[in-house]
């Protein structure tokens, strides 16, 4: 029984239900006219999440095999780079992210790794920021990087 409770699918459904319930509290505290539609939407959300949760509990899908994979590392890198952009500008957080992506996707030769990082990370940034003048977030106030 405990193994079913900790099944990722059950946890996902439970999390969705909890988030829906949490947002419902906000919606019911807010002004009635602005929150009219959100209340409807959240009611459907919570009802659907509840039925999905019950469904996942009944079905008892087999526990997926847990394998160690560096995927969480990639996810964390994407998230950190995205957050860091606001303060560090676009180029600096993106270079290590591209390098890590290449590395994890098996581009391991130092030359290709360096070249790929420079062209994909630096090159595309340069193309958009300096040539096409689609301004990306910057670190320095004069917009150089």
């Amino acid at each position, binding site marked *: 029984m405990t193994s079913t409770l900790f099944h990722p699918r059950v946890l996902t459904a439970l999390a969705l239900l909890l988030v829906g319930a949490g947002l419902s509290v906000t919606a019911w505290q807010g002004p009635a006219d602005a929150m009219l539609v*959100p209340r409807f939407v959240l009611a459907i959300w919570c009802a659907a999440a509840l039925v999905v949760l019950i469904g996942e509990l009944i079905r008892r899908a087999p526990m997926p095999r847990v394998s160690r994979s560096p995927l969480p590392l990639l996810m964390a890198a994407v998230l950190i780079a995205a957050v860091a952009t606001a303060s560090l500008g676009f180029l600096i957080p993106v270079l290590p992210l591209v390098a890590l992506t290449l590395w*994890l996707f098996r581009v391991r030769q130092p030359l290709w790794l360096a070249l790929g990082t420079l062209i994909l990370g630096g090159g595309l940034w340069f193309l958009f920021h300096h040539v096409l003048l689609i301004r990306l977030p910057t670190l320095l106030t004069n917009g150089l990087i």
Partner: protein
Amino acid sequence: MDIVLAAAADAFTWQALLAIVIGTWAGIIIGGLPGLGSVVGLTIFLPFTFGMDVITSMALLIGVYCGSVYGGSITAILINTPGTPQAAATTFDGYPMTQQGRVGEALGWATFASFFGGVLSCVMLIIGAPQLAKFAVNFGSIEVFALVCLAMLCIVGVSQGSTLKGILCGMMGFLFSMVGSDPITGADRFTFGQYALSSGLTLIPVVVGAFALSEVFVRFASRDDEAARIPEARLTFPGLRDIGRRLIELIRGSFIGGLIGALPGTGAAAAAFISYASAQKLSPRRKNLGKGEPDGIIASESSNNAVTGSSFIPTLALGIPGDVVTAMMMGAMVIHGITPGVRLMADQAQTVYSLFVVLIIVNVAMLILSKPSVGLFRYLFKLPQGFVMGGIVMFSFIGAVSVRGNPLDLVVAAVTGLLAYVLRRGGYPLAPLVIGMVLGPELESSLRRGLLISRGDFSAFFTHSTIASVLFILIALFIAGTLWSGFTQWRKDRAASESPAA
């Protein structure tokens, strides 16, 4: 007649033709790159138009616009990642076809359907712009509400596997669209006191996260698996007999797109979903939809490209921009001293006719340039997987942050990417998330405006006008039909499970 010839002469200058070729090709590539869509494409090219004459600058912008709507289908088919939100519905059948090794056929149908939809909507624009514009004016808030309700129901149709999970995701998308200021009272919603959130969440970062970034995460697990490689892109045009067999599908998709495009504020992504839902009810091969059926690609691609032509109807006939893209086009007209407005057709007939000619040439150019564009993507996707994935991450980041220059959008994309990965693993369909986000704002604001207009009386919606009544009856039929087919399916399943026991 003279004016038509003069207009054609304006459109057939070498500058205009060059602008069409460059714009269309760039548009296809920009649209094909995940993360970069029509708006980024037009923002890149808008500054270049300042030094050009009117027709050339329009040719460039229209080329980028039409090209990007088509280009989104290439990556949708090849790697299950729509290059633009408009192509999200193309993944339903496009990617299964790729998995079955029918890449060439899938891309061929996408290209031909895009061309067909584009040209048919040009014809609609040329023949019926004033009439269609008059018809569109009848769509007030209440009629739009009914139409969007009908469109929302297609969430049920595209939720393969679990309808409930689809509805849940649809509501999630709807809620995403509500973050920020309320469109009617201006009050902040779901911002939790954070100023950064008051600008709300926009579509592109969410689509980038839900499709592009989550696809990178999903492909990560199979990175050493040769069988999971991106297949080589090919393009085989459908034969005349095949086209004949599916002509009804092409025409229906194009008409749906053409009509939706004429209504201000609905857009190509909504048209594609509505058209796909109607194919699910009406196509003779509807049983195969979602499993790699060309009709699905036709429904999506013919309608989203049909929007490109007809979105000019409100712009040209009334001066009301149909969407962000036509709004940008109107801006470019103003720079060149043409005032868009109710008198545009009368005052600037020659320019308007030239625009029609340009639109048709752009669609032909799209058909011709499809081969080299697909060839380019074949070349790109042949690179080692790491470079492709690194490129997708980069373009996703650039696309998300450049939509409106807000670094918060990048965080939104990243968080949506993680969330979408968890949801995909849990068997939740992601298309409803996009549908909820595309249609949600229109559904809500038209409902609230409708309530203001009917002084708070919802029952007045049903009898407000003939159009509204017809649409509400269609909604009732749709719900009844879905419930009925669900019920018969359930009885069949039960009979099947009982018969072996008996």
